[in-house]
């Protein structure tokens, strides 16, 4: 496991890191975007690597187009099911405003926000004739002083031929940035192991394209 978990020394054995450190992740977006699946892929990767993991997610009424947050906590020292504010290594946001909403979870100066560029306007915005396009949110994220990686999900989805691969693209960007706790190879192995075969190649492609946004070679 890698990443900026608290108290991790460079020379610690993986077991010692697990005992002391907690690697927290927040996945957020709008109900129906594939948020829960993304957190499950990371949790499955953690289990395969022998790391204890806890996740908590929103189910029920709030899922219907509302804000959805999934908490993932990796490491033996994690007690609570929810991530404490200020401790997440990564905010993996499927939507710019949801990234801003969850920003207080980020460990200041020690993590990254991976965010999909595309805004999902709430029905209330259209009804009140107020336009929301996410640009103000992205502008704020870029200036907030934290590391921010913007992924153009529309481009990734169009390239991969499926509107459902935004989640793996975001995972690719976060893994490449070193804040997910796992490499793109480890995530790819989970995708190959757990997803139905017909979805594997498009998701592996999206993972690679997402990683490109972190390196700066996807646009």
């Amino acid at each position, binding site marked *: 496991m890698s990443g900026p978990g608290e108290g991790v020394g460079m020379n610690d054995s993986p077991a010692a890191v697990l005992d002391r450190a907690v690697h927290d992740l927040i996945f957020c977006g*709008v*109900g*129906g975007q594939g948020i829960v699946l993304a957190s*499950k892929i990371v*949790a499955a990767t953690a*289990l395969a690597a022998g790391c*204890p*993991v*806890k*996740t*908590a*997610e*929103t*189910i*029920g*009424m*709030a*899922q*219907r*187009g*509302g*804000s959805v947050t999934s908490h993932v906590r990796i490491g033996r*020292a*994690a*007690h*609570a*099911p*929810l*991530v*404490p*504010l*200020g401790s997440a290594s990564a905010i993996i946001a499927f939507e710019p*405003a*949801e990234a*801003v*909403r969850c*920003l*207080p979870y*980020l460990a*200041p100066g020690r993590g990254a926000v991976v965010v999909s560029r595309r805004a999902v*306007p*709430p*029905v*209330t*915005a*259209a*009804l009140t*004739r107020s*336009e*929301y*396009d996410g640009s*103000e*949110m992205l502008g*704020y994220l870029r200036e*907030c002083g934290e590391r921010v990686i913007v992924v153009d999900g529309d481009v990734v989805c169009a390239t991969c031929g499926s*509107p459902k691969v935004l989640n793996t693209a975001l995972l690719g960007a976060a893994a490449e940035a070193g804040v997910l706790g796992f490499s793109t190879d480890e995530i790819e192995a989970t995708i190959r192991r757990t997803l139905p075969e017909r979805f594997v190649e498009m998701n592996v492609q999206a993972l690679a394209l997402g990683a490109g946004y972190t390196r700066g070679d996807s646009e």
Partner: protein
Amino acid sequence: MGNHAIAAGAIRAGVGVVTGYPGTPSSEILETVVKRNPGDIYAEWSVNEKVALEVAAGAAYAGVRSMVTMKQVGLNVASDPLMSLAYIGVKGGMVVVVADDPGPISSQTEQDTRTFAGYAKLPVFDPVSPGEAFEMIQDAFELSERLGTPVLFRPTTRVCHGYAPIEVGERTREPGAGVFEKGSRWVIFPRLSYANHKAIEERLPVLAEELSSYRFNAVEEVRGGALEHDPARAVTRGIATGGVSYAYAREALSMLGADCRILKVGTPHPFPVDLAERFLRGLDEVLVLEELDPVIERELLMVAAERRIPVTVLGKRSGHTERAGESTVESVAAATAALLGVDAPVVPTCSSAPQPPARPPVLCAGCPHRASFHAVKRAMRGTKAVFSGDIGCYTLGNAAPLEMVDTCLCMGAGVTIAQGLERAEPDATHFAFIGDSTFFHTGIPGVVNAVYNGTDIVLVVLDNSTTAMTGHQTHPGLGRTAQGEVAERIAIAPVLEALGVSHVETCDPLRLEEAEAAVKRAVEAGGVSAVIFESPCIAVTAPGPMHAIDQDLCTDCQVCIQRLGCPAIMRAGGVVSIDTSLCYGCSICAQVCPTGAIGVAR
């Protein structure tokens, strides 16, 4: 998931009959039993929680281990049989799993099943985590069978929907068939009730003593934020907690690197009094961390008073913790820091951040309920009408722009609230919206009542062929059981006709004009009349053709947006468009567009 763990634990303990009614956050327990069924377990979605509890009780009468699952408000429906069953008892172990929802995240109330356990005089288990839930449910079966009493098991949302790895292992017992042994113990009469009441009251203190050494009740010592078995340093402050709050307390103590004694309560009723005394001795101040009711707090105050222990108990009654809502790591850390006289962890603030747009839950794009509500709204435009709603996805019809749910109380109440409103305000038309699963749950007696008492209402059944809100469980109108077997389909229209409803009409709400005309006919018919809007939930049917807006014809009048509030229709840069990733092809936007600009995408 915690719910998977509860199911796996029950299967391991040899459960033979599992019943329930769906309700967040409990629904996945029964679904998991169905999925993991080795083939000898009977599982059913019952029509409601009262029925579910009685079916499970019957099995337990015959010595088969049974489990019934529901959410906290379901226990209100099941409380009649449960209160009596507490007196009668069972032969096979019977666990009543009731999932509480602090927050509430997806519920009408924040009622606390631990309090209910005290009222019903039944033991209750309160697990901290999915792993503990797996172990505890097996203990619950053992205790139930040994004492011959039903036992409550109360996980909360964060336990039910939290994921953690567990080792399931082999079954410790097979379900097997039961034998019902006839005898007077199964027939509740006043004299038996008196005798059994007395026996229960005598048993509870004995059980409380026994539970003081139960493996999931414990006094723990934390030094420097971590557990220590035989600490050198003494402390004068302690935290009493249970359920998921224990996890928050451990997290807070770890963050603060603090010294503290912890009382962990896994069985809030009967309260492990002797263990609590051991915890309290030597402490000056105790903070109680628990969600919902101050159950542990009251018990500790009683222990301190009865056993003359000079200690201050802080919590909800003293204003040190919140009385309503869900705990967070931050709220628990702040209360813990205040108890210990240290600084609370600094929480980052983003004061300069722009306000993200509000994002309340909405009916899905393509949801047939949107069409049904719109059709009724159009039919009743300019008239005096009240729209009583019920529990389900369609409660979201309350939101703008539909604004078609004027009341919502509890399962089945729309049909009956409408009758009271009709008696109070007879010059208005009183509508009652009810979903298909809710109709079978508690809707039918309300319809009987309206017909029998001659109370004019217009019943609108929103039949989307599933129990949508809780994750698409089966119900009697579908012709399929929980175990996937073909069943006799109970159609709603003939039920209503048989009950004497004067006018019953079934139609497709996605054909707006026909739907509107059907509503008008039902209103004109008078008496108790009904329209059944039949159109499947988008989650259980294939999408229709994608729609698009012809920008040459669109005048930006926004009628589609302002009338329907569909999440797939948006406006950006002065242009109204349809999001093809959300559109489900229901076509109602095309039907309301005054300029004919919306049609099937080419």
